[in-house]
């Protein structure tokens, strides 16, 4: 599946396209189909997202897992500062990235 990601214009947060808006949680990401260009162009023009693009991902269990490690790190946060990640209470969260 293709999911859409970028950064929030104001905060810089990593965000994911939910079909209706943007979420900081990768698990909220939805399949944007094979031609997401129109969505990206519209959202960039609306000044909500910056640096947006489509990536490959898969649904494993109940989780959306980006195909590339770089995007998994973007989804979680820095693996060396899990206290600042989206799963600060999970000491094994970094394993998901690898």
């Amino acid at each position: 599946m293709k999911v859409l990601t970028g950064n929030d214009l104001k905060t810089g947060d990593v965000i994911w396209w939910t079909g209706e808006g943007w979420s900081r949680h990768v698990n909220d990401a939805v399949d944007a189909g094979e031609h997401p260009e129109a969505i990206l162009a519209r959202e960039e023009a609306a000044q909500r997202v910056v640096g947006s693009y489509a990536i490959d991902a898969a649904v494993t269990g109940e989780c959306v897992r980006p195909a590339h490690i770089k995007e998994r790190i973007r989804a979680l946060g820095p693996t060396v500062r899990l206290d600042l990640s989206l799963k600060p209470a999970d000491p094994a969260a970094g394993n998901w990235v690898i």
Partner: protein
Amino acid sequence: MYQYDQYDQAMVDARVAEFRDQVNRRLAGEMTEDQFKPLRLKNGLYLQLHAYMLRVAVPYGTLNSAQMRMLGDIADKYDRGYGHFTTRQNIQYNWIKLEDAADILADLASVEMHAIQTSGNCIRNTTADQFAGAAADEVEDPRPYAELLRQWSTFHPEFDYLPRKFKIAIIGSDTDRAAMKLHDIGIQIVKNEAGEIGCRFYVGGGMGRTPMIAPVIGDFVPPLQMISYLEACLRVYNRYGRRDNKYKARIKILVHEIGADEYRRQVEEEFAHILTLGLEPPPAELERIKGYFADPGFETGLSGDIDRSDPDFALWLDQNVHAHKQPGYAIVTISLKPTGGIPGDASADQIRLMADLAKAHSFDELRVTHAQNIVLPHVKKADLYALWQKLDAAGLASANLDLISDIIACPGLDYCSLANARSIPVAQKISERFADLGRQRELGELKLKISGCINACGHHHAGHIGILGVDRKGVENYQLLLGGSEGADTSLGTITGPGFNEDGIVDAVEKATDVYLAQRTDGERFLDTYRRIGMAPFKEAIYG
């Protein structure tokens, strides 16, 4: 330290106001990202992996305590309680909101700081010897020249859109502590047989995907003609540097392609022309600047004795304290490399503590090193033990300077959008593997440097042991290099062979150190042994 005059302050204040307006227009939807991006980059604001990243300039790595304290306060107020000191002697904040960016620049301007020249194809913030003005082996203090260079290069209209970014380092000692020959231009202040001071220009060095050691282009340029010679070097580069291919756009490629002799000929021709224009700063201006860098009020007649009865203090003393030019004083390097820590990171509290210690013990001065540590340049020997106790209580007393755990590491894939692999976890694992300080000291001087991509921000080419992270079909892989160096004996490391995974690279490093321990002769560093016995024994141990 240099202090802004009315022109410096007015320029920086105007820049803050200009950027505030630009941010407001961007947030109001009056500018697209394509329009805004070059403007934010001109103010050090990048968009990185997780958020906006602000890179703050620390001109020639020198700070006073008010500036350092402000860096700590910014970490708390606008970021997530920490900052990252970089191999360019700057500091980066990783979690900046666009909405806050102009306020941060205003706070910086209030202590004579900014984020200018930290991005873009301009002359970047100049780096310098972190022991400047304090080193016992210094020919001349490079800081006045670095400040002159800052004033010349800031907003220089001719060099604001060079073919590629441009980095200059300047030193004033025989000992190169600034990796000078691996910069676009390295300037060494030297003294000739007649006792005259001059500038030796090394031009065309660099790391990145095409590492090169800079050749000498100008052997002895009179100090007051330093700016004109720089103009000539830059002008030839600006004219002929390639703009069609960013990977071949650095000056090192130009110097390599036309040859050092031809490049020198063109520079000399341009230099002769520039000298007719009378562009040099008046001697009085250099003298005015030098006045800001006069020695602080050193006491005289101080004892050089130090009580070494505390063994942990003695270890730190031997490893992290260097000789000072003034009897009774010493240079202290605060390691930002605790066991298992993130190289170069410091919490807001640690940053403020270092500011307080500089105020109390180092004539209000600090330096950032390209090895991602902090220097207190002028500490009374009698104060060393009290200082060490305060550092120790804050987790800042690692006695590992220049040892294997004093690792340079770029932010890597944990933070950087350009990276291919993570650097920091590898640094942490190596640091933990060699946690025993006795083992580290047995290995002696061993500079280990890690980059998460070929851009080489972690200086892997110049590591006695270097590690380069690459992407192998979406999986992190690490290449090992041996034999690099960045000092007077600058050399480029050689790749040992096939790469490793994260655990494998730590094992490979350990095997390389085992070869060294088995093969070294008296007094040899790791680098010396490698140069004597060559790559073969290391490859055999690592891959055999």
